[in-house]
Protein backbone atom coordinates (compact mmCIF):
# COMPACT_ATOMS: atom_id res chain seq x y z
CA UNK A 1 0.00 0.00 0.00
CA UNK A 2 1.18 3.50 -0.82
CA UNK A 3 0.35 6.47 1.39
CA UNK A 4 -1.14 9.34 -0.65
CA UNK A 5 -3.58 11.06 1.62
CA UNK A 6 -2.96 11.63 5.32
CA UNK A 7 -5.44 12.66 7.99
CA UNK A 8 -4.39 14.70 11.01
CA UNK A 9 -6.70 15.02 13.99
CA UNK A 10 -6.12 17.65 16.66
CA UNK A 11 -4.65 20.96 15.57
CA UNK A 12 -2.53 21.93 18.55
CA UNK A 13 1.14 22.78 18.16
CA UNK A 14 1.98 19.19 17.19
CA UNK A 15 -0.94 18.73 14.78
CA UNK A 16 -0.27 22.03 13.03
CA UNK A 17 3.39 21.15 12.60
CA UNK A 18 2.45 17.78 11.13
CA UNK A 19 -0.04 19.29 8.68
CA UNK A 20 2.56 21.69 7.30
CA UNK A 21 5.37 19.15 7.28
CA UNK A 22 3.33 16.52 5.45
CA UNK A 23 1.64 18.88 2.98
CA UNK A 24 5.03 20.33 2.10
CA UNK A 25 6.19 16.88 0.97
CA UNK A 26 3.34 16.77 -1.54
CA UNK A 27 0.83 14.59 0.30
CA UNK A 28 -2.86 15.46 0.35
CA UNK A 29 -3.84 16.24 3.93
CA UNK A 30 -7.19 16.22 5.67
CA UNK A 31 -7.02 18.29 8.89
CA UNK A 32 -9.66 17.87 11.57
CA UNK A 33 -10.38 19.60 14.83
CA UNK A 34 -13.64 19.86 16.73
CA UNK A 35 -13.00 23.54 17.32
CA UNK A 36 -13.72 25.61 14.25
CA UNK A 37 -11.36 28.45 15.32
CA UNK A 38 -8.42 26.04 15.27
CA UNK A 39 -9.15 25.15 11.66
CA UNK A 40 -9.27 28.81 10.71
CA UNK A 41 -6.00 29.49 12.55
CA UNK A 42 -4.24 26.59 10.87
CA UNK A 43 -5.45 27.64 7.43
CA UNK A 44 -4.35 31.21 7.96
CA UNK A 45 -0.95 30.05 9.17
CA UNK A 46 -0.47 27.85 6.09
CA UNK A 47 -1.48 30.64 3.74
CA UNK A 48 0.89 33.00 5.45
CA UNK A 49 3.81 30.58 5.24
CA UNK A 50 2.94 30.08 1.56
CA UNK A 51 3.37 33.79 0.99
CA UNK A 52 6.44 34.23 3.18
CA UNK A 53 8.63 31.25 2.30
CA UNK A 54 10.78 30.87 -0.77
CA UNK A 55 10.42 27.83 -3.01
CA UNK A 56 7.70 26.51 -5.26
CA UNK A 57 6.54 23.78 -2.88
CA UNK A 58 5.36 26.49 -0.47
CA UNK A 59 3.13 28.48 -2.84
CA UNK A 60 0.12 26.20 -2.99
CA UNK A 61 0.63 24.52 0.37
CA UNK A 62 -2.74 25.62 1.76
CA UNK A 63 -4.54 24.14 -1.25
CA UNK A 64 -3.20 20.66 -0.41
CA UNK A 65 -5.07 20.66 2.88
CA UNK A 66 -8.77 20.05 3.45
CA UNK A 67 -10.32 21.27 6.71
CA UNK A 68 -13.26 19.90 8.63
CA UNK A 69 -14.71 19.63 12.11
CA UNK A 70 -15.83 16.08 11.28
CA UNK A 71 -13.83 12.91 10.62
CA UNK A 72 -16.05 11.89 7.71
CA UNK A 73 -13.58 13.32 5.19
CA UNK A 74 -10.97 10.73 6.22
CA UNK A 75 -12.66 7.96 4.26
CA UNK A 76 -9.96 7.87 1.56
CA UNK A 77 -6.91 8.41 3.81
CA UNK A 78 -4.33 5.62 3.84
CA UNK A 79 -2.92 6.97 7.11
CA UNK A 80 -4.64 8.91 9.87
CA UNK A 81 -2.55 10.36 12.71
CA UNK A 82 -4.22 11.46 15.92
CA UNK A 83 -2.54 14.32 17.77
CA UNK A 84 -5.21 15.20 20.34
CA UNK A 85 -4.49 15.80 24.05
CA UNK A 86 -3.14 13.03 26.29
CA UNK A 87 -6.54 11.73 27.42
CA UNK A 88 -6.63 7.95 27.13
CA UNK A 89 -10.43 7.64 26.97
CA UNK A 90 -10.68 10.33 24.31
CA UNK A 91 -8.01 8.65 22.23
CA UNK A 92 -9.63 5.22 22.51
CA UNK A 93 -12.98 6.63 21.49
CA UNK A 94 -11.53 8.59 18.60
CA UNK A 95 -9.78 5.51 17.17
CA UNK A 96 -12.97 3.52 17.55
CA UNK A 97 -14.84 6.20 15.56
CA UNK A 98 -12.09 6.28 12.96
CA UNK A 99 -12.37 2.55 12.50
CA UNK A 100 -15.99 3.07 11.42
CA UNK A 101 -15.08 5.77 8.93
CA UNK A 102 -11.81 4.64 7.32
CA UNK A 103 -11.13 1.72 4.99
CA UNK A 104 -10.02 -1.56 6.58
CA UNK A 105 -6.52 -1.16 5.23
CA UNK A 106 -5.97 2.34 6.59
CA UNK A 107 -3.23 2.71 9.19
CA UNK A 108 -4.07 4.57 12.37
CA UNK A 109 -1.15 6.42 13.96
CA UNK A 110 -1.14 7.67 17.53
CA UNK A 111 1.31 10.32 18.73
CA UNK A 112 0.88 9.47 22.40
CA UNK A 113 3.96 9.68 24.57
CA UNK A 114 2.21 9.02 27.90
CA UNK A 115 0.02 6.03 27.15
CA UNK A 116 0.65 2.58 25.79
CA UNK A 117 -0.12 2.12 22.11
CA UNK A 118 -1.70 -1.23 22.96
CA UNK A 119 -3.95 0.56 25.45
CA UNK A 120 -4.95 3.27 22.99
CA UNK A 121 -5.89 0.53 20.46
CA UNK A 122 -7.78 -1.55 23.01
CA UNK A 123 -11.33 -0.94 21.80
CA UNK A 124 -10.65 -1.56 18.13
CA UNK A 125 -11.83 -4.58 16.20
CA UNK A 126 -8.64 -4.38 14.15
CA UNK A 127 -6.06 -3.28 16.69
CA UNK A 128 -3.31 -4.61 14.40
CA UNK A 129 -3.46 -1.44 12.33
CA UNK A 130 -2.52 0.99 15.09
CA UNK A 131 1.10 2.18 15.07
CA UNK A 132 2.67 4.56 17.57
CA UNK A 133 4.33 7.59 15.95
CA UNK A 134 6.02 9.73 18.56
CA UNK A 135 7.13 12.98 16.98
CA UNK A 136 9.26 15.29 19.11
CA UNK A 137 8.73 19.04 19.36
CA UNK A 138 9.43 21.15 17.39
CA UNK A 139 8.18 18.51 14.99
CA UNK A 140 9.36 20.24 11.83
CA UNK A 141 12.92 20.52 13.11
CA UNK A 142 13.62 17.39 15.18
CA UNK A 143 14.86 14.62 12.93
CA UNK A 144 13.74 11.66 15.02
CA UNK A 145 10.46 9.77 15.12
CA UNK A 146 9.98 6.92 17.58
CA UNK A 147 7.79 4.23 16.06
CA UNK A 148 5.99 1.98 18.50
CA UNK A 149 4.83 -1.53 17.82
CA UNK A 150 1.84 -2.28 20.03
CA UNK A 151 1.23 -5.84 21.22
CA UNK A 152 -1.04 -6.51 18.24
CA UNK A 153 0.48 -4.20 15.61
CA UNK A 154 1.14 -5.85 12.25
CA UNK A 155 4.80 -5.72 11.29
CA UNK A 156 4.12 -4.84 7.63
CA UNK A 157 2.31 -1.68 8.73
CA UNK A 158 5.25 -0.52 10.82
CA UNK A 159 7.33 -0.80 7.67
CA UNK A 160 4.90 1.34 5.69
CA UNK A 161 4.87 4.00 8.41
CA UNK A 162 8.66 3.82 8.55
CA UNK A 163 8.90 4.48 4.79
CA UNK A 164 6.40 7.32 5.15
CA UNK A 165 8.48 8.96 7.91
CA UNK A 166 11.61 8.64 5.81
CA UNK A 167 9.78 10.39 2.96
CA UNK A 168 9.38 13.29 5.41
CA UNK A 169 13.18 13.19 5.83
CA UNK A 170 12.92 11.84 9.35
CA UNK A 171 15.00 9.10 10.89
CA UNK A 172 13.19 6.44 12.83
CA UNK A 173 13.79 3.93 15.54
CA UNK A 174 11.33 1.21 16.45
CA UNK A 175 10.86 0.99 20.21
CA UNK A 176 8.98 -1.23 22.62
CA UNK A 177 5.57 -0.18 23.87
CA UNK A 178 6.88 0.85 27.28
CA UNK A 179 6.10 4.04 29.25
CA UNK A 180 8.32 6.88 28.08
CA UNK A 181 9.50 4.92 25.03
CA UNK A 182 13.16 5.81 24.71
CA UNK A 183 13.59 9.58 24.47
CA UNK A 184 11.28 10.55 27.33
CA UNK A 185 12.48 7.66 29.45
CA UNK A 186 15.94 9.23 29.33
CA UNK A 187 14.98 12.88 29.18
CA UNK A 188 12.38 13.21 31.94
CA UNK A 189 14.53 11.99 34.89
CA UNK A 190 17.35 14.24 33.69
CA UNK A 191 15.01 17.23 33.82
CA UNK A 192 13.70 16.28 37.25
CA UNK A 193 17.25 15.92 38.49
CA UNK A 194 18.10 19.40 37.20
CA UNK A 195 15.03 20.94 38.84
CA UNK A 196 15.89 19.26 42.16
CA UNK A 197 19.55 20.26 41.94
CA UNK A 198 18.54 23.87 41.37
CA UNK A 199 16.13 23.74 44.30
CA UNK A 200 18.92 22.40 46.49
CA UNK A 201 21.24 25.25 45.51
CA UNK A 202 23.81 23.29 43.50
CA UNK A 203 24.39 26.40 41.38
CA UNK A 204 22.64 29.50 40.11
CA UNK A 205 20.20 28.95 37.24
CA UNK A 206 22.58 30.66 34.81
CA UNK A 207 25.60 28.66 35.94
CA UNK A 208 23.65 25.41 35.80
CA UNK A 209 22.52 26.07 32.24
CA UNK A 210 25.94 27.33 31.14
CA UNK A 211 27.67 24.27 32.59
CA UNK A 212 25.38 21.89 30.75
CA UNK A 213 25.62 23.77 27.46
CA UNK A 214 29.38 24.32 27.49
CA UNK A 215 30.53 21.31 29.48
CA UNK A 216 28.28 18.67 27.96
CA UNK A 217 27.48 20.34 24.63
CA UNK A 218 23.70 20.00 24.98
CA UNK A 219 21.83 22.52 22.80
CA UNK A 220 20.11 24.15 25.79
CA UNK A 221 20.48 24.14 29.56
CA UNK A 222 17.73 22.25 31.42
CA UNK A 223 16.13 25.28 33.08
CA UNK A 224 15.89 27.40 29.95
CA UNK A 225 14.57 24.32 28.16
CA UNK A 226 11.81 23.59 30.65
CA UNK A 227 10.72 27.23 30.47
CA UNK A 228 10.34 26.73 26.73
CA UNK A 229 8.51 23.39 27.00
CA UNK A 230 6.22 24.67 29.76
CA UNK A 231 6.40 23.55 33.38
CA UNK A 232 2.79 22.36 33.22
CA UNK A 233 3.57 20.12 30.25
CA UNK A 234 6.56 18.64 32.03
CA UNK A 235 4.54 18.07 35.21
CA UNK A 236 1.84 16.31 33.21
CA UNK A 237 4.35 14.06 31.47
CA UNK A 238 6.45 13.17 34.49
CA UNK A 239 3.33 12.49 36.60
CA UNK A 240 1.91 10.19 33.93
CA UNK A 241 5.19 8.30 33.67
CA UNK A 242 5.51 8.04 37.44
CA UNK A 243 2.00 6.59 37.65
CA UNK A 244 2.87 3.91 35.14
CA UNK A 245 6.45 3.13 36.13
CA UNK A 246 6.47 3.74 39.89
CA UNK A 247 10.10 4.72 39.44
CA UNK A 248 11.17 7.44 41.86
CA UNK A 249 13.20 9.22 39.18
CA UNK A 250 9.93 10.22 37.54
CA UNK A 251 8.32 11.60 40.69
CA UNK A 252 7.61 15.31 40.10
CA UNK A 253 9.94 17.42 42.26
CA UNK A 254 7.90 19.47 44.80
CA UNK A 255 9.22 22.77 43.43
CA UNK A 256 7.77 21.91 40.02
CA UNK A 257 4.27 21.47 41.39
CA UNK A 258 4.64 24.63 43.46
CA UNK A 259 5.66 26.68 40.44
CA UNK A 260 2.80 25.31 38.37
CA UNK A 261 0.38 26.12 41.20
CA UNK A 262 1.77 29.66 41.23
CA UNK A 263 1.16 29.97 37.49
CA UNK A 264 4.87 30.12 36.68
CA UNK A 265 4.64 27.93 33.61
CA UNK A 266 7.65 29.25 31.69
CA UNK A 267 7.96 31.55 28.71
CA UNK A 268 4.30 31.49 27.84
CA UNK A 269 3.31 33.12 31.14
CA UNK A 270 6.32 35.42 31.35
CA UNK A 271 7.92 33.57 34.25
CA UNK A 272 9.30 30.16 34.96
CA UNK A 273 12.83 29.58 36.21
CA UNK A 274 13.67 32.83 34.42
CA UNK A 275 11.61 35.97 33.79
CA UNK A 276 10.70 37.01 30.27
CA UNK A 277 9.82 40.26 28.57
CA UNK A 278 6.55 40.36 26.69
CA UNK A 279 8.34 39.94 23.35
CA UNK A 280 10.08 36.69 24.37
CA UNK A 281 6.97 34.87 25.44
CA UNK A 282 6.09 32.85 22.38
Amino acid at each position, binding site marked *: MEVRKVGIIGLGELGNGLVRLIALKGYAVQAVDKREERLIECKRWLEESGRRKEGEEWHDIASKVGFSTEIGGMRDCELVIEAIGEDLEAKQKLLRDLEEVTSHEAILGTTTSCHSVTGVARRLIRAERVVGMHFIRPVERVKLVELVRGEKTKEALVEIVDAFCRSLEKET*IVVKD*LPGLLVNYLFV*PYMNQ*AIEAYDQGLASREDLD*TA*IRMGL*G*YPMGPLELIDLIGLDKHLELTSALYDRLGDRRFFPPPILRRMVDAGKLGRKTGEGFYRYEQSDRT
Partner: protein
Amino acid sequence: MADEKNTIGVLGCGTMGSGIAIVCARAGFKTIVVDTDERQLKRGRELIDRFFAKSVEKGKLTEAKKREIMQSRLTFSVSYEDLKECYFIIEAVYEDLEVKKAVLAKLNGICHVGTIFASNTSTLSITSIAAGSGRPDRVIGMHFCLPAQVMRLVEVTRGLQTSDETYQRTKELGEQLGQVIINTKDTPGFILNHFVVAFNNSCIRAYEEGRGKVEDIDKAVKLGLGYPMGPFELLDYIGLDTHLRVSLALYEQTRDNRFWPPPLVRRMVDAGHLGRKVGRGFYMYPEAGMFGV
Protein backbone atom coordinates in the same frame (compact mmCIF):
# COMPACT_ATOMS: atom_id res chain seq x y z
CA MET B 1 57.77 36.48 32.77
CA ALA B 2 60.18 35.65 35.56
CA ASP B 3 57.70 37.17 38.01
CA GLU B 4 56.48 34.41 40.28
CA LYS B 5 52.93 35.76 39.96
CA ASN B 6 53.11 34.35 36.50
CA THR B 7 54.18 30.87 37.44
CA ILE B 8 51.66 28.09 37.63
CA GLY B 9 52.39 24.56 38.73
CA VAL B 10 50.58 21.60 37.26
CA LEU B 11 50.88 18.44 39.26
CA GLY B 12 50.22 15.20 37.40
CA CYS B 13 50.89 14.84 33.70
CA GLY B 14 48.20 12.46 32.55
CA THR B 15 45.56 13.43 29.99
CA MET B 16 44.00 16.08 32.23
CA GLY B 17 47.29 17.48 33.54
CA SER B 18 48.72 17.77 30.03
CA GLY B 19 45.60 19.57 28.83
CA ILE B 20 45.69 21.99 31.74
CA ALA B 21 49.39 22.67 31.12
CA ILE B 22 48.55 23.55 27.51
CA VAL B 23 45.87 26.01 28.66
CA CYS B 24 48.29 27.70 31.10
CA ALA B 25 51.24 27.92 28.71
CA ARG B 26 49.04 29.06 25.84
CA ALA B 27 47.74 31.94 27.99
CA GLY B 28 51.32 33.13 28.57
CA PHE B 29 52.07 31.69 31.99
CA LYS B 30 55.34 30.09 32.95
CA THR B 31 54.18 26.57 33.66
CA ILE B 32 55.98 23.94 35.67
CA VAL B 33 54.68 20.43 35.12
CA VAL B 34 55.56 17.83 37.73
CA ASP B 35 54.94 14.11 37.66
CA THR B 36 56.96 11.66 39.70
CA ASP B 37 56.47 9.00 37.04
CA GLU B 38 59.16 9.72 34.48
CA ARG B 39 57.43 7.79 31.68
CA GLN B 40 54.15 9.60 32.25
CA LEU B 41 56.00 12.91 32.21
CA LYS B 42 57.68 12.06 28.92
CA ARG B 43 54.40 10.95 27.39
CA GLY B 44 52.69 14.15 28.55
CA ARG B 45 55.45 16.27 27.14
CA GLU B 46 55.07 14.57 23.76
CA LEU B 47 51.33 15.07 23.86
CA ILE B 48 51.76 18.77 24.56
CA ASP B 49 54.40 19.10 21.85
CA ARG B 50 52.10 17.40 19.35
CA PHE B 51 49.25 19.71 20.28
CA PHE B 52 51.32 22.84 19.63
CA ALA B 53 52.74 21.33 16.43
CA LYS B 54 49.15 20.88 15.22
CA SER B 55 48.42 24.50 16.13
CA VAL B 56 51.37 25.53 13.93
CA GLU B 57 50.05 23.35 11.07
CA LYS B 58 46.65 24.99 11.39
CA GLY B 59 48.25 28.42 11.30
CA LYS B 60 47.13 29.29 14.81
CA LEU B 61 50.69 29.55 16.09
CA THR B 62 54.06 30.42 14.55
CA GLU B 63 56.94 27.97 14.73
CA ALA B 64 58.94 30.54 16.73
CA LYS B 65 56.12 30.95 19.23
CA LYS B 66 55.85 27.20 19.63
CA ARG B 67 59.57 26.96 20.32
CA GLU B 68 59.27 29.71 22.89
CA ILE B 69 56.39 27.93 24.64
CA MET B 70 58.08 24.53 24.66
CA GLN B 71 61.55 25.78 25.59
CA SER B 72 61.03 28.75 27.89
CA ARG B 73 57.51 28.70 29.19
CA LEU B 74 57.09 25.02 29.94
CA THR B 75 59.30 23.13 32.37
CA PHE B 76 58.96 19.43 33.11
CA SER B 77 60.22 17.87 36.30
CA VAL B 78 59.90 14.80 38.50
CA SER B 79 60.57 16.78 41.67
CA TYR B 80 57.98 18.50 43.86
CA GLU B 81 60.73 20.90 44.96
CA ASP B 82 60.51 22.57 41.58
CA LEU B 83 57.02 23.82 42.40
CA LYS B 84 58.47 26.03 45.13
CA GLU B 85 58.21 29.26 43.17
CA CYS B 86 54.63 28.75 41.92
CA TYR B 87 51.94 31.07 43.21
CA PHE B 88 49.18 28.80 42.02
CA ILE B 89 49.18 25.02 41.72
CA ILE B 90 46.59 22.87 39.98
CA GLU B 91 46.73 19.23 40.93
CA ALA B 92 45.50 16.56 38.54
CA VAL B 93 46.91 13.46 40.21
CA TYR B 94 45.08 10.15 40.53
CA GLU B 95 41.44 10.52 41.62
CA ASP B 96 41.76 9.13 45.13
CA LEU B 97 41.12 11.07 48.30
CA GLU B 98 44.10 9.73 50.24
CA VAL B 99 46.45 10.29 47.31
CA LYS B 100 45.28 13.87 46.87
CA LYS B 101 45.43 14.64 50.59
CA ALA B 102 48.98 13.32 50.80
CA VAL B 103 50.04 15.35 47.80
CA LEU B 104 48.69 18.60 49.25
CA ALA B 105 50.28 17.94 52.63
CA LYS B 106 53.61 17.47 50.90
CA LEU B 107 53.19 20.65 48.82
CA ASN B 108 52.31 22.58 51.97
CA GLY B 109 55.83 22.06 53.25
CA ILE B 110 57.40 23.22 50.00
CA CYS B 111 55.34 26.15 48.70
CA HIS B 112 54.96 29.78 49.75
CA VAL B 113 52.42 30.43 52.42
CA GLY B 114 50.24 32.33 49.95
CA THR B 115 50.20 29.71 47.21
CA ILE B 116 46.76 28.45 46.27
CA PHE B 117 46.19 24.74 45.73
CA ALA B 118 43.46 24.01 43.21
CA SER B 119 42.22 20.48 42.73
CA ASN B 120 40.96 19.22 39.39
CA THR B 121 38.91 16.52 41.11
CA SER B 122 35.62 15.63 39.46
CA THR B 123 34.10 13.41 42.14
CA LEU B 124 35.72 14.11 45.50
CA SER B 125 34.83 16.76 48.04
CA ILE B 126 37.01 19.86 48.05
CA THR B 127 36.52 20.19 51.80
CA SER B 128 37.78 16.64 52.30
CA ILE B 129 40.76 17.13 50.00
CA ALA B 130 41.63 20.34 51.92
CA ALA B 131 41.60 18.59 55.29
CA GLY B 132 45.20 17.96 56.28
CA SER B 133 46.62 20.34 53.68
CA GLY B 134 47.64 22.75 56.44
CA ARG B 135 45.96 25.56 54.50
CA PRO B 136 42.29 24.64 53.91
CA ASP B 137 41.40 28.29 53.29
CA ARG B 138 43.70 28.28 50.28
CA VAL B 139 42.36 25.09 48.69
CA ILE B 140 39.71 25.27 45.99
CA GLY B 141 38.18 23.11 43.26
CA MET B 142 38.95 23.87 39.63
CA HIS B 143 37.44 21.18 37.45
CA PHE B 144 38.47 21.43 33.82
CA CYS B 145 36.55 19.42 31.23
CA LEU B 146 38.09 16.76 29.05
CA PRO B 147 39.88 17.63 26.76
CA ALA B 148 40.95 20.71 28.74
CA GLN B 149 42.78 22.33 25.80
CA VAL B 150 39.51 22.41 23.83
CA MET B 151 36.73 22.81 26.39
CA ARG B 152 36.43 26.28 27.88
CA LEU B 153 34.30 25.51 30.90
CA VAL B 154 35.76 25.25 34.40
CA GLU B 155 33.69 24.37 37.45
CA VAL B 156 34.98 26.32 40.43
CA THR B 157 34.05 24.94 43.83
CA ARG B 158 34.61 26.42 47.25
CA GLY B 159 35.04 24.02 50.12
CA LEU B 160 33.59 24.89 53.52
CA GLN B 161 36.82 26.63 54.51
CA THR B 162 37.87 28.25 51.23
CA SER B 163 38.45 31.98 51.74
CA ASP B 164 36.96 34.79 49.67
CA GLU B 165 40.42 35.87 48.62
CA THR B 166 41.27 32.39 47.35
CA TYR B 167 38.05 32.36 45.37
CA GLN B 168 38.70 35.81 43.89
CA ARG B 169 42.25 34.93 42.84
CA THR B 170 41.05 31.66 41.29
CA LYS B 171 38.32 33.41 39.38
CA GLU B 172 40.79 36.00 38.05
CA LEU B 173 43.22 33.30 37.02
CA GLY B 174 40.45 31.39 35.25
CA GLU B 175 39.60 34.49 33.25
CA GLN B 176 43.26 35.12 32.40
CA LEU B 177 43.40 31.56 31.13
CA GLY B 178 40.51 32.39 28.80
CA GLN B 179 38.15 29.94 30.50
CA VAL B 180 34.48 30.36 31.41
CA ILE B 181 34.03 30.01 35.16
CA ILE B 182 30.87 28.74 36.80
CA ASN B 183 30.37 28.18 40.53
CA THR B 184 29.07 25.04 42.13
CA LYS B 185 28.45 23.77 45.64
CA ASP B 186 30.87 21.23 47.07
CA THR B 187 28.54 18.29 46.42
CA PRO B 188 29.46 14.98 44.75
CA GLY B 189 30.04 15.30 41.02
CA PHE B 190 29.50 19.09 41.09
CA ILE B 191 27.30 19.85 38.08
CA LEU B 192 28.70 17.96 35.12
CA ASN B 193 29.29 14.54 36.61
CA HIS B 194 26.15 14.79 38.72
CA PHE B 195 24.19 14.86 35.48
CA VAL B 196 26.25 12.93 32.99
CA VAL B 197 26.93 9.92 35.22
CA ALA B 198 23.25 9.56 36.07
CA PHE B 199 22.26 10.01 32.44
CA ASN B 200 24.76 7.46 31.16
CA ASN B 201 23.61 4.94 33.75
CA SER B 202 19.98 5.53 32.66
CA CYS B 203 21.00 4.80 29.10
CA ILE B 204 22.78 1.60 30.08
CA ARG B 205 19.71 0.53 32.05
CA ALA B 206 17.46 1.27 29.07
CA TYR B 207 19.69 -0.98 27.00
CA GLU B 208 19.64 -3.73 29.66
CA GLU B 209 15.84 -3.54 29.72
CA GLY B 210 15.75 -4.02 25.97
CA ARG B 211 14.26 -0.61 25.25
CA GLY B 212 16.57 -0.24 22.31
CA LYS B 213 19.78 -1.34 20.67
CA VAL B 214 23.00 0.53 21.40
CA GLU B 215 22.87 2.24 18.00
CA ASP B 216 19.21 3.19 18.42
CA ILE B 217 19.73 4.71 21.86
CA ASP B 218 22.66 6.75 20.53
CA LYS B 219 20.51 7.84 17.61
CA ALA B 220 17.59 8.77 19.88
CA VAL B 221 19.83 10.90 22.07
CA LYS B 222 21.63 12.64 19.21
CA LEU B 223 18.63 13.26 16.95
CA GLY B 224 15.87 13.44 19.53
CA LEU B 225 17.66 15.50 22.18
CA GLY B 226 20.37 17.14 20.07
CA TYR B 227 23.29 16.00 22.25
CA PRO B 228 26.66 16.02 20.48
CA MET B 229 27.48 12.37 21.20
CA GLY B 230 25.40 9.32 21.93
CA PRO B 231 25.81 7.94 25.47
CA PHE B 232 27.51 4.74 24.29
CA GLU B 233 29.91 6.61 22.03
CA LEU B 234 30.70 8.80 25.02
CA LEU B 235 31.12 5.86 27.41
CA ASP B 236 33.50 4.17 24.98
CA TYR B 237 35.48 7.39 24.79
CA ILE B 238 35.60 7.90 28.57
CA GLY B 239 36.36 4.23 29.22
CA LEU B 240 34.07 1.78 31.00
CA ASP B 241 36.62 1.36 33.82
CA THR B 242 36.59 5.11 34.44
CA HIS B 243 32.81 5.20 34.31
CA LEU B 244 32.62 2.38 36.86
CA ARG B 245 35.03 4.17 39.19
CA VAL B 246 33.22 7.52 38.95
CA SER B 247 29.80 5.89 39.40
CA LEU B 248 30.93 4.08 42.52
CA ALA B 249 32.55 7.23 43.92
CA LEU B 250 29.30 9.17 43.52
CA TYR B 251 27.15 6.33 44.82
CA GLU B 252 29.40 5.91 47.83
CA GLN B 253 28.90 9.55 48.79
CA THR B 254 25.20 9.86 48.06
CA ARG B 255 23.60 6.37 48.16
CA ASP B 256 21.56 7.68 45.26
CA ASN B 257 20.52 4.82 42.93
CA ARG B 258 20.90 6.96 39.85
CA PHE B 259 24.65 6.66 40.29
CA TRP B 260 24.76 2.93 40.96
CA PRO B 261 26.51 1.28 37.99
CA PRO B 262 24.18 -1.15 36.20
CA PRO B 263 25.52 -4.75 36.30
CA LEU B 264 26.49 -4.64 32.64
CA VAL B 265 29.22 -2.10 33.41
CA ARG B 266 31.05 -4.51 35.71
CA ARG B 267 30.62 -7.37 33.26
CA MET B 268 32.15 -5.27 30.49
CA VAL B 269 35.03 -4.20 32.69
CA ASP B 270 35.63 -7.83 33.74
CA ALA B 271 35.61 -8.85 30.09
CA GLY B 272 38.09 -6.12 29.25
CA HIS B 273 35.63 -4.29 26.99
CA LEU B 274 36.80 -0.92 28.25
CA GLY B 275 36.06 1.19 25.19
CA ARG B 276 38.05 2.82 22.45
CA LYS B 277 41.39 2.51 24.14
CA VAL B 278 41.30 -1.29 23.88
CA GLY B 279 39.42 -1.50 20.59
CA ARG B 280 36.16 -2.71 22.07
CA GLY B 281 33.44 -1.31 24.30
CA PHE B 282 29.81 -0.96 23.29
CA TYR B 283 31.16 -0.67 19.75
CA MET B 284 34.12 -2.30 18.02
CA TYR B 285 37.08 -0.17 16.98
CA PRO B 286 39.12 -2.03 14.38
CA GLU B 287 41.80 0.67 14.43
CA ALA B 288 42.54 -0.12 18.12
CA GLY B 289 45.65 1.37 19.57
CA MET B 290 45.32 4.60 17.65
CA PHE B 291 43.84 6.20 20.70
CA GLY B 292 46.63 5.10 23.02
CA VAL B 293 46.19 3.34 26.31
